[in-house]
């Protein structure tokens, strides 16, 4: 296995608060790498730095051998680095299908086309439907995204991310706020993603994390305090004290 993304000494502060504190991590090609940690540990911030949404103060990001630190979010997406949002971020006034077709459109040909009607482009719609089927939302294709239930919107988030055809998928708490059934379906979906995509998964649901992850990293106050297999993490005394211990108690 080769390293897909090398994170080197990454830093980010908001004023005096060090939110990402010297993070160094390798994301291996094909793995599902979970990042866990208490609320406010800096998990979302780290994802935002990796995806290019937030600039980093210092450090390096080497993706497929290329330094991507200065690339915009859109440029990183075109290289196969996509994210989903912890707080759902969709196009509420567009249909479910259009939300996904937009992502397909972004990677297939120029969008500086001014006359032909995009809604009639079968190829965009077909690829979008494939993604909707993967997350089991095909029957909602014509509904407005804003009218979906919370759980369905979480599924749509993932369908949109998949539609960019990512090599590296950064998922920020995909299970947050979903019901039991939806959550089980999403876990199944993520299991199916393994190998096809490299995944960085942030999740508070420990059952899901330990069921899915090949490796885990534990983030506390912006620092990675441990990285390893689920077994190693479970038995790491520092991790138990800092994070898992709370749950065991």
């Amino acid at each position, binding site marked *: 296995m080769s390293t897909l993304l090398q994170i080197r000494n990454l830093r980010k502060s908001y004023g005096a608060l060090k939110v990402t504190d010297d993070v160094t991590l390798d994301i291996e090609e094909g793995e599902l790498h979970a990042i866990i940690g208490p609320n406010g540990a800096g998990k979302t911030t780290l994802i935002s730095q990796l995806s290019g949404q937030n600039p980093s103060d210092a450090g390096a990001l080497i993706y497929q051998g290329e330094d991507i630190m200065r690339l915009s*979010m859109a440029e990183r997406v075109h290289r196969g680095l996509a994210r989903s949002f912890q707080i759902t971020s969709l196009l*509420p006034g*567009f249909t479910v299908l259009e939300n996904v077709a937009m992502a397909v459109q972004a990677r297939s040909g120029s969008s500086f086309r001014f006359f032909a009607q995009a809604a009639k482009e079968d190829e965009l719609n077909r690829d979008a439907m494939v993604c909707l089927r993967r997350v089991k939302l095909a029957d909602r294709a014509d509904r407005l995204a804003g009218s979906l239930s919370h759980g369905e919107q979480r599924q749509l988030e993932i369908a*949109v991310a998949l539609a960019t055809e990512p090599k590296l998928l950064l998922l920020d708490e995909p299970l947050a706020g979903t019901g039991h059934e939806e959550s089980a379906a999403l876990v199944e979906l993520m299991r199916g993603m393994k190998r096809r995509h490299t995944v960085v998964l942030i999740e508070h649901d420990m059952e899901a994390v330990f069921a899915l992850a090949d490796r885990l990293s534990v983030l506390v106050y912006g620092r990675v305090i441990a990285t390893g297999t689920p077994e190693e993490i479970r038995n790491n005394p520092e991790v138990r004290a800092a994070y898992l211990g709370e749950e065991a108690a």
Partner: protein
Amino acid sequence: MIALAPRTRLLAAALLFVLFALLPFLATALDDHFIVITATRVMVFAIAALSLDLILGYGALVSFGHAAYLGIGAYTVAVLSSNGVSDLGLQMLGAVLASAAFAAVTGAISLRTKGVYFIMITLAFGQMAFFFFVSLSSYGGDDGFTLQARSTLAGMALLEDDRVFFYVTLAALVLLFLFANALIGSRFGRVLTGTRENPLRMQAVGFTPFRYQLTAYVISGCMAGIAGVLLANQTEFVSPAFMTWHRSGELIVMVILGGIGTLVGGILGAAAFLMLEEWLAIFSEHWKLGMGALLILVVLFTRGGLTGLLRRFLGGRA
């Protein structure tokens, strides 16, 4: 914001255009030539409002300097015809090029800002254009500049006939509407509308909103520049008064009055605004007070301007 189904939008527009096309006959029947002149003016502003709706309604870009393009278009006519180029087509081409250049430069700067800052910076650029033409003494400066004649078509002075000019203006309005209508349904329009709803989401799937917003801003400016060419011909006079910030504000009012993000709304709004201006002025010199009150009512109660109101009267969902 109310969204019109594409077919409803086309139907409403077709109805409006047919009504416009019949007005000269009404003028003959009533022996009231003023109808033709007023309707021409309405259509000129309809083009300007339509162009503004493209960026305001579909891009959420509130430009408070849009009248600058009316001025740029109008002065293109003055400058070109003074230099022997009187052909309407060439003048429109000139106006499009000049508008595109101004929009590209000012848009590239304005679009670095958002929200109220965008409004202020477009206002500032509009004022700069205004003062540029005020200081242009070879074209009358403050006092404006009277055109020798209307533009020519195929070398002939056809536009001197108010009715011919009316139908040329109508043709321009119809073509530009069809252009805008195709645009918003295209890949480009979809991206533009997406950036209005959620720019972060658009970046997260791989778009750079700035490029699409700037392109829309330039296209919109070019359309308004064409309106400026027609405005100069309608009044046979050009003046910095075409491009005051009041005028920019009026264009925004027209779009809101008619219904933001509907295209048809810009046309309806321009008609409503200019008619009201005339009628209210008959009753009182304080007609602007009435206009203000009316605008408040429209915003508070119609949910989507005249287009929204009409849709509710016609019943059901579009």
